[in-house]
């Protein structure tokens, strides 16, 4: 499809479980589109060149830099942003762990970090500290020195494993 540079096209996609649509010029960055067209201001913009990671969102489940994507690229796709994390009105386990471990100060980089961590924990249920730090190296946080973030992620991984083992035991007992 050929689109003129100043022509706005309709972008229909799933944002945090709901179908949303908006109009975007071909050059509009996904980060700007989410924030200013969709009102999803939880996703922050820190560098617009893909280094700081503040704008990280999940596109079809993969952590992606919203500043390095165009809005038109998400047409027909599924997006999750930080606004998707809270469950039943309360913080989810990862958010709660960030709170408990003082893993945020100004909170500006936090949204992106939470999204990367969410994807990572789904992929790597039993990470080592080195793996966690390696994953976090895609993000810049200038406030915390990262300690609280690392501890929060490790704790969530351990707790989720415990639960899962508990579930498995339960299932085994039921059998």
């Amino acid at each position, binding site marked *: 499809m050929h689109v003129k540079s100043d022509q706005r096209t309709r972008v229909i996609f799933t944002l945090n479980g709901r179908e949303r649509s908006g109009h975007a010029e071909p050059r509009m960055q996904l980060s700007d589109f989410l*924030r200013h067209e969709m009102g999803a201001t939880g996703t922050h913009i820190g560098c617009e060149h893909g280094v700081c990671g503040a704008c990280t969102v999940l596109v079809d489940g993969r952590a992606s830099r919203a500043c390095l994507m165009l809005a038109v690229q998400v047409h027909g796709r599924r997006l999750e942003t930080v606004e998707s994390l809270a469950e039943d009105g309360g913080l989810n386990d990862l958010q709660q762990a960030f709170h408990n471990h003082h893993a945020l100060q100004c909170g*500006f980089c936090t949204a992106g970090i939470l999204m990367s961590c969410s994807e990572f924990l789904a992929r790597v249920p039993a990470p080592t500290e080195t793996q966690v730090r390696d994953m976090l190296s895609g993000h*810049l946080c200038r406030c915390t020195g990262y300690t609280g973030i690392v501890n929060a992620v490790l704790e969530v991984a351990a707790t989720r494993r415990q639960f899962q083992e508990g579930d498995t035991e339960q299932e085994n007992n039921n059998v």
Partner: protein
Amino acid sequence: MNAFESPTLDKRSGHIGKRQTRVEDDALLRGQGRYGDDLATPPGTLHAAVLRSPHAHARLTSLDVSRALAMPGVHGVLTGDDVKRWAQPFPVGVRQPMDHWCVAVDKVRYVGEPVAVVIAENRYLAEDALEGVCVGYEPLPVAVDTEAAIADGAVILHEAVGANVVNDRRFCYGDPQTAFDTAERRVSLKVRFPRSSCTPIECYFVLAQYDVASGGYDVTSNFQGPFALHSVMTRALKVPGNLLRLRTPPDSGGSFGIKQGVFPYVVMMGLAARKVGAPVKWVEDRLEHLQASSSSTNRVTEVEAAVTHDGRVTALRLDQLDDCGAYLRAPEPATFYRMHGNLTGAYAIRHLEVRNRVVMTNKTPTGLNRGFGGPQVYFALERLMQRIATELDLDPLEVIRRNLIPSGSFPYRAAAGALLDSGDYPKAVALGIEEGGLAELLERRKAARRAGRLYGIGYTVAVEPSISNMGYITTAMTPEERRKAGPKNGAVSTATISVGPLGDISAHVSSTPQGQGHRTVVAQVIAEVLGVPLESISVNVELDTGKDAWSIASGNYSSRFSGAVAGAVYNAALKIKQRLAVIAAEQWGVDAERVRFGEGRVFVDGGDASASFHRIAGATHWSPGTLPESESGGLRETAFWTPPELVAPDDNDLINSSLCYGFIFDYCGVEIDRITGAVRIDRYVTLHDAGRMLNPDLVDGQVRGGFAQGLGVALMEEFAYGDDGSFISGTFADYLVPTAVEVPEPLILHMETPSPFTPLGAKGVGEGNNMSTPVCVANGVADALGIKDIELPLTPSKVRTLMGFDEPPRPEGVGEEVAKQTPGGSLLTASDSVEIPGTPRQVFDNLLDPDTLAAIIPGCHALELTGENAYRADVTVGVGMIRARFDARVALRDLDPPHALRLSGAGTSSMGSAEGSAKIRLTEIEGGKTRLDYDYEASVGGKVASVGGRMLQSASKMIIAQIFTRLSRHLGGAAPKASLWQRIKRLVTGKGGQS
């Protein structure tokens, strides 16, 4: 002292000093924070983009905005002429004829200096229209290196001043001359401290409105204070203080001092709003932020100590050059004087001689940056202590210990006037040695060295000043100048507490936090004093100069929250408490001193009377008629607090530059990789005595964050400039900051010696590691390598150089790189050759043909003949992520048909400037072809230059190659055949050729 101050706390609820999780977190973790760019804007808000100078130093010869104004969505362009009409230059902290306008009016003095502001319907359109502003520059010689800038013959930035040293002060305390004359030993050192910034992840934000009826400005910005700068802004805007309503958003994405530097943009966007008659919003991008926002000063220090044989320092001599960049922007030259009273650090050194020179160079103006002045001072002082140990063959820690201010001597008046409030330095060092496991670390070093590894231990002690004296900056003036100007001193903090009709408590502080958790601590203090649940207290930290209590010391700087602001909160809470106690006492017929507060209730000590807090407090609203006569009804108290210890500098230049002085003792074990030169932190121990800790979790958070930033300064961060003043650290790929893999977990130790001067005994703790960590790591590396001259950042390549590493010979068969980069980083030179079909004559004639030229210049939109063999071209060039449309002049010179000619071009764009020339030689070769040899030289400046030399190198190579590919095609051939050299290179390396 009021009657309720002692005993201060009735039923210790334990809120103060508790590891309390933060009330700020919930919203931030949900993505519900309200940072500047998240706020709703008024209908019709327009968006600004700033056109910036690509030159480090140039005279503005012309400015034509007509093309920009004709572009889609553009509402106006703010220029220097508008600024001259409506505003005036910012006041300067020293008496010198230097004009700093918010938009350049006659000259530009640093790369990135604002030249015009385009205001359009959205950010994209505004940035597009930057291309439409045509600026004429007459480039001038530059002064970039600090020492070169003060040398004879250096170009002067501010001609009216007549020199690049804009402030030169000498200080003498005690009798340093005699101490040096009679010294048993002298040890000296010269150090250079680089520029850096703590780079908050949120950049600057301004939303400005102009009210034409009142002539006033209403601006929301993530400005962090000090609000003394509000006066600087109103002076520039030529309005009284009450016609600049300055507000801050509820949340700010970090600052670390840097967001002080947004203030020129507050003025600029206010004027932009006035220009277009609509609200104007501007959100700075990262490239702008790195290049042109603010930074710490870079400093050159020569330091010398008079020393006894056993390492006791009797006198100190400091000659400091502080490089404040192109303008002395308020509050500079504060970087010098923030540390002045405590220049002798943690040591009992009574004789001190100082020369401070403030230097202007063609670099971005400097300002607050976490640690403010501390990293520069301690880098010199603590490196010197390490050198004393080395030169006298003593243990470095022993040298430190012998010089510490002795126990039991606090408050201690330091040589230059700091009244060090409290502490026990020898005890703290002993504690650090013991609990940090120094003995084991020494063993590790022994073992590592036995195994032939490069391992070193670094030590640092530092005094961390907090709650700065608003008068310290006047130390830059002579006593006589100060007498004329009138004394400046103090540090007023404010807090307001209101209790609503249902007993609900709201508090406001003017501390503009940027992530430190002030709301949590304020709630802790109030909960403790009034005996109410923490959750019932709502704390607002937005500051609105139009209706909040504030003063010049408001804002978030100099680690003033825990000592000063939390102290004011405490005082305001005591006022509320006193009023409620009187009310309850009258109701119950008891003495007010017997009334107690706790667990949400008000009760009588040892009596039966008791009521809920909300009932007693609510009476001030619902039934004021029943209250004691002293009561006016309503319940809202504001406390202003300023410490009497902060007096103006005296006639001998003694200055108590801060109220509190914490103590830090750091040591680290570092290991250096012999092959890569990488510095690995094996262990880092940091001990802090910051007085009483109000919330140890938040204290540790500050320490960890400061440590990570200090480590960045030690190992990777530097705002680097080319010799021509181009900025070459322009992206987060060039300016590296530590990530989770580079930051180890420090061992944090605490000692608590309450400050006698703050209401809660607390001191600041936020900046200590920014001061101590860079030099501690440097001392570790000095110990590991046994070398004297250490320059930060200690990148692997720099460390390899320090190690005296010889580069291994080039592997056989690998040719020399064609392109050579100059140290400046932006001048690119290379040569190459291509084969082109056609005779030299055909090639030559084609090059002289405008149509051919238009066709072969990549990205050429239009080419217009302006003279014989001279053209004006409109060209789009892309380098990396940056694309820019250049207005270029192209000329063909030195014509020697059909053998040689020179193709030269120079262009400017919103992204920077570029110029270059290529000497072309044509030689006939067999097969009716021509070999075209070319040598070219290209230089770039501005944002384009900031993408880094390597990328530019390959980009320019590619663009030049494209020209000749196109020429070859134009002559009916295929892509030109690669030269022999290229073919060989391709055979050898598997790559090369047309890149």
